[in-house]
């Protein structure tokens, strides 16, 4: 692995929730992200997986400082983003971009595609005429020069997502956060967009944080994977280690819950059925947050929070009774 591009240390994000309960008003804290640490190398792809409410999107937004973390540090190319002045942060932002899930909502319907793609260049004050750059970007994502004059409604979902990618690429970023970038696309279209991400990375060498709930896509694209549950990373490591030898019970259950497109494998598989739902992040369980749904839970799990520990297959997981 090459030099680290990004170092996230003990990231915490709490949201304040105002509950209006008839006459009384209460304040509650939603612990969306708790003590998340990870690093990302240059040209590397980190998959961030977890169910809804696991905090994966919040992590992505804290990294870009689209929302202000409660505590913890995010270092990008050695600079602590929290210590930067507004103008400095703004200058650094050109190296960090994001592609959102919904290609229908993330493009302005009243702007031509060309105007949408050149907007980041204008915002960042890149001088000159951007026509050639827009054409270059459109071709880079598999669209053509004459698409620049058209409007978003003239494009299919897959094409709109490509436009969003072209816009993210405009400033030659070193990091792109892909937040569920293929979830809204049809199956036959997904594959082409995933291939595009891979091609762009091998040509331009940027790093990705790929946030998704689809574990098969993450397995395909990620070098390393972090599994989140209720705001914490429960397992993190090389893609192959995590998928082939999951050591956290939650990872194991999550992987076994994913239906595979192969009837013979499906019949032969033993599945771990988790009971119930993810608990509320307003009042997460003490100790290990997964213990309320874990079949291995003992008294110690309620009292003592397990720390991320290196396992024989190379990854780290936070569990008192890891799978072997």
């Amino acid at each position: 692995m090459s030099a680290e591009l990004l170092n996230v240390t003990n990231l915490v994000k709490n949201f304040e929730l105002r509950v209006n309960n008839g006459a009384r008003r209460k304040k509650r804290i939603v612990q969306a992200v708790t003590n998340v640490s990870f690093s990302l190398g240059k040209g590397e792809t980190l998959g961030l997986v977890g169910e809804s409410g696991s905090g994966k999107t919040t992590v992505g937004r804290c990294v870009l400082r689209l929302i202000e973390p409660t505590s913890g540090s995010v270092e990008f190319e050695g600079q602590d983003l929290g210590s930067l002045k507004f103008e400095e942060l703004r200058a650094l932002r050109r190296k960090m971009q994001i592609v959102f899930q919904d290609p229908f909502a993330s493009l302005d319907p009243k702007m031509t595609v060309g105007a949408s793609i050149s907007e980041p260049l204008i915002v960042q004050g890149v001088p000159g005429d951007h026509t050639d750059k827009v054409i270059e970007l459109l071709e880079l994502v598999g669209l053509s020069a004459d698409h620049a004059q058209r409007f978003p409604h003239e494009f299919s979902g897959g094409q709109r997502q490509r436009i969003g990618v072209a816009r993210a690429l405009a400033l030659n970023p070193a990091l792109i956060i892909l937040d569920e970038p293929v979830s809204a696309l049809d199956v036959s279209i997904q594959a082409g967009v995933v291939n595009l991400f891979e091609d762009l990375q091998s040509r331009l060498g940027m790093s990705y944080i790929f946030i998704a709930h689809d574990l098969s896509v993450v397995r395909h694209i990620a070098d390393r994977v972090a599994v989140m549950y209720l705001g914490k990373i429960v397992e993190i490591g090389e893609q192959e280690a995590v998928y082939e030898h999951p050591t956290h019970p939650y990872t194991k259950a999550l992987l076994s819950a994913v239906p595979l497109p192969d009837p013979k494998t499906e019949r032969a598989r033993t599945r771990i059925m988790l009971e119930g739902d993810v608990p509320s992040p307003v009042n997460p369980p003490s100790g290990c947050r997964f213990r309320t749904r874990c079949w291995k839970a003992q008294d110690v799990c309620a009292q003592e929070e397990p720390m991320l520990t290196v396992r024989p297959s190379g990854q780290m997981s936070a569990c008192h009774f890891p799978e072997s």
Partner: protein
Amino acid sequence: MTEKVLEIRDLHVTFDTPAGPLEAVRGLDLDVSAGELLGVVGESGSGKSVTFLATMGLLPVRARVTGSVLLAGEQLIGASAKQMRSVRGRTLSMIFQDPLSALNPVHRIGVQISEMLRSHQDLSASEADKRAVELLDIVGIPQPSDRARQYPHEFSGGMRQRVVIAIAIANNPKVLIADEPTTALDVTVQAQILEVIERVQERFGTAVVLITHDLGVIARVADRVNVMYAGRNVEQGTIDSLFDHPSHPYTRGLLASLPRPGKQRLKPITGFPPNMLNPPSGCAFHTRCEFAADICKNELPNLVGFGDLLTACVRARELPKSESFA
């Protein structure tokens, strides 16, 4: 061959839009046998939901529906509103992706289940309430008698979907249509709901039509599968034959485009789904098909027996054998 509970023949559904008529379903044939779990796959716009909304008589009046839908011998196309009211919830039920919008927020769960029971069966209020609690137990809701007195907002997404299933099966319907029932749910909750659906199918012998875009879900629970493209059925068969030797180029393309363990490059289907205001002539898939020939532009293929599959492709016999995905 087992008894057919639902027979759809030459179904056409057309919507008049400002841009002209849009034919969402274009001559669909489909059979559901008693007690089976039939998967229906297709991408957005393939007509899979519209087909079953038409079956339920739930399309807006401006939709033009022709063809034949026989539910245990009873013709549903052209049936009166009164007749459809008696069918829906009694012999034919449907559940949807979003369970919250299917429930009434101001009524207790138990009341919503007994309402369904009493609208089709001659039951006293207390009998219906008792039965409602039993149904909650069947779909795996803990402490069913307490939960029956709660409101929808007190339930999680997975629990709400269980409640909706309880309402749908209250009158022991012959056919339960489940339209993307797990798409809005997390994968661990999806596994639970699929298990409930399978349990209902086995325990009551209910035929289930599971509409989904997820071929993994199909592989897990379905007995047979229908693949839809551009408002038509392009292939159908048992899941084993379909995954082992898909014959239609679209089915092959779908299966080949899925990520599988190992780092080989993904193979997308080229192009994008057709605009249904102006679908391609002949076989609608010819614009994206790697095997397309001139004949495909002119001839609308029908389902033809091909080995143990039914395939709507004029070139099915000439094509090289597909790789196996089983």
